[in-house]
């Protein structure tokens, strides 16, 4: 059963000179067992949308249904939502000092055996590439920025919720961390989880998502799915979004009059090579 966003509108600072409409009549369904990306420039509304889905923000209009149940009842978020959110800034998510305690914190409400908690903490740290023995006793405030990001993700993984929402999870991660996260998200999907992630890196989203919602000005501007053609992406290029290098290259070449097929990545590379490799190539 999905997450349904029904006609949600939200404005910040209502009634002040700085009132700003961040979401306008947004309608979307996050299907179960899918990986969904939210993409857009700063202040397009993507973080607001994610926070609405997590129930952290109560929209002035419309509502969110999670597994057919209203996320917000009488202005309050339901207590057990089966939703885990990793914040954009890890510092704003942490409540305790010690790595172990922070990851175990959310589990204390689940009435779990001490031994199971330890197992979960150890497993979650492993999933984000941090060794349990090295990191369990570390003070979170003294971790490097990439290590903090990893702990923030581990904290949510430990909750074992069905829905996992990630706000800019790759920010500050090194190359290996980004690859690990890619694998982790694929694993979550394989284990019947649903992942929604906000990212400003379209390249990254294209690699891992089933669907990408392009958010502009508080509404869904367009949707890219794994069935979309590269032609659809050319429209994004025209709208000045930053795309993978091979796509930017082919779009620039096409703009200069070279007719190169946009079938798929392989065809693009083959097409570029064919046009430019000279006559005597066998």
């Amino acid at each position, binding site marked *: 059963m999905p997450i349904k966003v029904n006609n949600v509108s939200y404005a910040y600072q209502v009634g002040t000179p700085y009132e700003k409409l961040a979401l306008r009549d947004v309608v979307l369904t996050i299907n179960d067992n899918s990986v969904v990306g939210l993409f857009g420039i*700063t202040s397009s509304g993507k973080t607001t949308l994610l926070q609405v889905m997590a129930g952290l923000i109560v929209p002035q209009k419309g509502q969110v249904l999670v597994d057919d149940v209203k996320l917000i009842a009488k202005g309050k978020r339901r207590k057990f939502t089966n939703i885990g959110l990793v914040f954009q800034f890890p510092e704003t998510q942490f409540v305790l000092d010690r790595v172990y305690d922070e990851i175990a914190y959310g589990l204390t409400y689940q009435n779990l055996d001490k031994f199971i908690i330890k197992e979960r903490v150890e497993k979650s740290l492993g999933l984000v590439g941090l060794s349990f023995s090295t990191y369990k006793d570390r003070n979170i405030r003294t971790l490097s*920025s990439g290590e903090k990001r990893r702990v923030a993700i581990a904290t949510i993984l430990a909750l074992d919720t069905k829905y996992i929402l990630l706000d800019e999870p790759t920010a500050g991660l090194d190359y290996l961390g980004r690859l690990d996260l890619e694998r982790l998200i694929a694993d979550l999907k394989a284990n019947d989880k649903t992942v929604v992630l906000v990212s400003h890196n379209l*390249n990254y989203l294209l690699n891992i998502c089933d669907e990408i919602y392009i958010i502009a000005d508080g509404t869904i501007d367009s949707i890219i799915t794994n069935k979309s053609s590269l032609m659809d992406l050319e429209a994004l290029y025209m709208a000045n979004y930053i795309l993978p*290098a091979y796509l930017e*290259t082919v779009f*620039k*070449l096409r703009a200069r009059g070279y007719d190169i097929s946009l079938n798929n990545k392989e065809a693009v*590379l083959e097409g570029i*090579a064919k046009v430019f490799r000279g006559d005597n190539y066998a």
Partner: protein
Amino acid sequence: MISLQNVTYQYPKSNRNILNNISGDFLEGEFIAVVGKNGSGKSTLARLLNGLLVPVNGQVIVDSLSTKDRENQIKIRQKVGLLLSSPDNQIIFNLVEEDVAFGPENLGLPTKEIKYRVDAALKMVKMEEFKKHPPYLLSGGQKQKVALAGLLALNPKYLVLDEPTTMLDSQSKQDVIKTILDIKNATNLTVIMITHDLEEVVKADRILILDEGLIKADIKPEEMYDNKAVLSAAGVELPEVTQLIDELNNKGLESLPHNLLTVDELVNELCRLK
């Protein structure tokens, strides 16, 4: 010049050398990128450069002043500005101009001089028109530029930027990087920038690769491809364009040079082949 002389650093109550006997110079007007895995010691290096941390062994010398001498501290902090990635933690005042004025006010400069510096700094980051704005209404990229102006108002010689664009979207990232490059080109400032973004790295004059407490390589962006084994061992990927050139060459375009670093350079080179 900032000189690292056999610098070793360990955090208190830890027995791991985060930096292990490293040496090297940062020259006037240079733009140096520092890359490496999470936890490789990049931010530690940044804090050593402006004296927030002092080496356990060895020395960091800023224009002949050692960061180890407490009496040099104020002078060094003024010469070496440090910008962090989270703009919200760096901005505290209600108006952009108050925020930028904070540093010079602390130096006890005359009001006229402060006003002059604030205007000049905001002009350098192209934020003059936001002078009277409350910072919290600015975008992440604009806040980052205001924080940068705050550093510039101290007339530093060195800027150390610790992942200045990590929390920004692509458009703001490009805007902040362009601002940094413009400032670097218009002045003789030395810019030392930590980043995980290879598209930013290729804009530097020189790249330092940190791993296992050591500087594993000190190379020019064009030399990244030739050093791909070192980079990969240190957990650093090649720029996207470099990878693309490899893929194209495997399809029979063997003459494409590996020192092309941007899509535009690649497109021009391809069209030249024709």
